[in-house]
């Protein structure tokens, strides 16, 4: 998941060391643009298309990680 955290750091325009499972998305302008960027990021890393509404409901970075196996199962 290091790729994902590094990608999120790029989206949030902060240092990669500042992003981990407990990162609170709301502290980093978790808006529709960030969500669209994250959809592209996850598609690039593992070829999975996450649902925008499900991403919108995520609170921490670990919530995003948790969505990925669900996307695989769907």
């Amino acid at each position, binding site marked *: 998941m290091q790729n994902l955290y590094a990608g999120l750091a790029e989206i949030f325009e902060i240092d990669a060391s500042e992003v981990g499972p407990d990162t609170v998305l709301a502290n980093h302008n978790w808006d529709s643009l960030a*969500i669209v*960027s994250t959809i*592209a990021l996850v598609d690039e890393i593992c070829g999975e298309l996450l*649902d925008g509404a499900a991403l919108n409901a995520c609170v921490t970075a670990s919530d995003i990680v948790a969505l990925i196996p669900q996307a695989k199962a769907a």
Partner: protein
Amino acid sequence: MTTAAATPAEGRSRRGGYVLSGVALRGVICAVPGAPVANSVIAQTLGDQAVADVVKMVGVETRHWAAPDQTSADLCAAAAERLLEKLQWEPDSVDALIFVTQTPDHPLPASACLLHGRLGLATDCQAFDVNLGCSGYVYGLWLAASLIQSGCRRVLLLAGETSSRLVDPSDRGTAVLFGDAGSASAIEQDSAAPTLRFRMGTDGAGAGALMVPQGGFRPVDPDRAFTLDPTRLHMDGGEVFTFTLREVPKLVADTLADAGLAGEAVDAYLLHQANRFMLRHIGKKIGATDAERLPINIDRYGNTSSATIPLLLADDMAERLTAGATRLMLVGFGVGLSWGAVLGEFGPLACAEVISA
């Protein structure tokens, strides 16, 4: 005896794909209103930071906005007049006029009929509107090609939008993104023309992702809370993006498969200019990453709905298309949700240019 499903080469294994022949695109003219409008103008309403955040993703630097009394039909009429003049087509030689728009002059009659009158076309020329947006140019070409196969000789395809009238200026997601433009394309019967391969689809379950909720004849639910003016465009960017990533790479792959071609055989992919970030992402997925094979002009025109593909033909591709033939795949996708692609050899065109209206 596992038959049809197991042998995809047999019969009508892949629905939604069609082959048409004997149809040639002769010329494309686009018309944009007034001077380019810079992001700084929008920043006066939305603030510098909000605009900068959106611009980073969508990539729009300037766009054109129609004057208050200027409509999509006006832009398309200007383009059509220039096109007829350039091709030296007599108005009474046109058999059909198709107008693709979601911003018609009136609820009725069809703006195509008004355009028919303005252009002085013959009374035995058919004229009708098509209410589609981002996929509309491909649908329009499909309809024009089908009319020609039905016996028409010359078809005018007009496609244009004044989305600036539909966006809520306080909605940063749409206020920065959209621009206005009109286009006119000339399609003619030509038995020597190479084959065109079309592929179309729809996902009506996603219709709510791009919608103007009020203004038609269905009453709006009085209990529904709107964050934006219900008479303006509502766009769920995340849903539209997911839909595009799900359908467009598949559409491109299926259209190539219909033709038995590899992706490298396509000289350029002309994708609906939805959003620069999205275009680059799809470009990577379909293996077209340079400006030669994936032209992008959303920086100059914004997302002009059904006019984005004609703007690519008349601007970025103008030199290549007037000089000779080139194999293109045109791909439209968006409001509906609706999508379409056409693959074929286009050119040499007699004219391809963008004019000011």
